[in-house]
């Protein structure tokens, strides 16, 4: 097992982090193309909106998994975390953009009342707003200016954001669907690995 992990870590060391920005951007134009040409069925707007939101949430989950993967499997994906986080923001922003422009047809009055009156939209919007400071500070300059401790503290904001995103996904459904609940369960499990149990001796400096 550890040999496999070592090989994997060695291979990943050669992959530049910037390649992830390209790789993770490619699905966006592909999905728009697919939606526009009938690949997403007869109601492409809703399908596209959901797909973007789901991918955004999946990237948030992937970002949350990096620390436990390092802690428990010694798999080191740390250098990819920023790209994953920034791309999660991009997908969530596209998800929101599709809602505003394509789904709601820029009916701002209706959207405004929806944001205030519909808890699942309120929750989604709060989660998006929470992602903005994280996306804005995801660069070396901000890290230097803020100082590592303050920066790390700010970026723990992703924990409540992930939970809000998972709850938002469950609430969009008309009935209790399995998949969104699996998403939230995974999010909660990943957050649980970060709890510093008082009785447990700390061995690795997990973040």
């Amino acid at each position, binding site marked *: 097992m550890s040999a496999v992990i070592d090989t994997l870590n060695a291979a990943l060391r050669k992959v530049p982090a910037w390649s992830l920005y390209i790789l993770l951007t490619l699905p966006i134009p592909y999905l728009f193309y697919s939606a526009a040409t009938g690949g997403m069925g007869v*109601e492409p707007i809703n399908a596209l909106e959901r797909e973007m939101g789901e991918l955004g949430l999946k990237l948030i989950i992937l970002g949350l998994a990096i620390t436990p993967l390092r802690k428990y499997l010694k798999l080191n994906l740390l250098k990819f975390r920023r790209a994953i986080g920034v791309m999660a923001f991009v997908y969530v922003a596209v998800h929101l953009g599709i809602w505003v422009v394509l789904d709601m*047809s820029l009916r701002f009055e209706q959207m405004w009342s929806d944001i205030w009156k519909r808890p699942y939209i309120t929750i989604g919007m709060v989660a998006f707003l929470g992602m903005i400071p994280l996306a804005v500070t995801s660069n070396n300059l901000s890290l230097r200016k803020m100082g590592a401790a303050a920066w790390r503290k700010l970026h723990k904001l992703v924990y409540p954001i992930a939970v809000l995103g998972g709850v938002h996904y469950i609430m969009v459904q008309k009935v209790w669907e399995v998949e969104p609940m699996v998403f939230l369960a995974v999010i909660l499990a990943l957050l649980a690995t970060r709890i510093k149990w008082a009785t447990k001796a700390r061995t690795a400096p997990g973040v």
Partner: protein
Amino acid sequence: MAFRWKNNLTHADVTPEPIWLNRRAVLAGMAGAGALGGSVAAQESLEPNTWEEITTYNNFYEFGTGKSDPADNAGDMVTDGWEITIDGMVDNPGTFSLADLTADMTMEERLYRFRCVEAWSMVIPWNGFELADLLNKAGVQSGATHVAFETAVLPDVMPGVRRRVIEFPYVEGLRLDEAMHPLTIMATGVYDRPLANQSGAPIRLVVPWKYGFKSIKSIVRITLTDEQPKTSWNDINAREYGFYSNVNPEVDHPRWSQASERVIGGGLFAARQDTLMFNGYPEVASLYDGMDLSVEF
């Protein structure tokens, strides 16, 4: 009703024209109706959705909760030899073959708007007959106030039933006057073709001024009763889905506005359109005189 009496006179011959126009408006769902009155003109401008759109974007939870699940999964449902039980407060109860039941009904094409509670809509050219004709044939007993409907439960071919995503059988109901309204039809086809399984083959209800879930699919039982029947979505979440569930742009679903809707088939860049009161069938308004539709929604 062994046969339908026909004459050469029309409503125009006996009825003052404004009332006749109003009557035509009631029947305005019929495709190809003449250009008579605003409501009819509005109907004529309706552009029906394609067969593909109508049969690939469906809610039919017996076959799954995804929009394409019914089209993917409903193919194994066998509708040959379908039987419907009519019981409760009727003079002629019994279990009838679909063929016997529809044999002496007057088939019509009705081009209706179809508005889902999820704020999307289609325009569908149904083939069917008025439910009132069927109820009259069954002989509704005095004292009956409501009609209850039940969908088939076929776990062998219905993955949603096996997963028990909601409680089955799916049940729906109407008040008797709603059921007897000329706009309320039992549909057996679309575009002169038999209903696709995912559309509710072989026979379904269509109540065009209510949210789509009221138009129960693949019916196996129709029961006349003297009390308001249990209805599936109302049972699942009464706060979100009322018994009446009339299309009403002023009464929001708790989780989304009903003021506007997305028309299926418009592609990626089609704008939302305003939702019409009673889905554009104002002739049913009198059914609800004296009711507060924000309370009895």
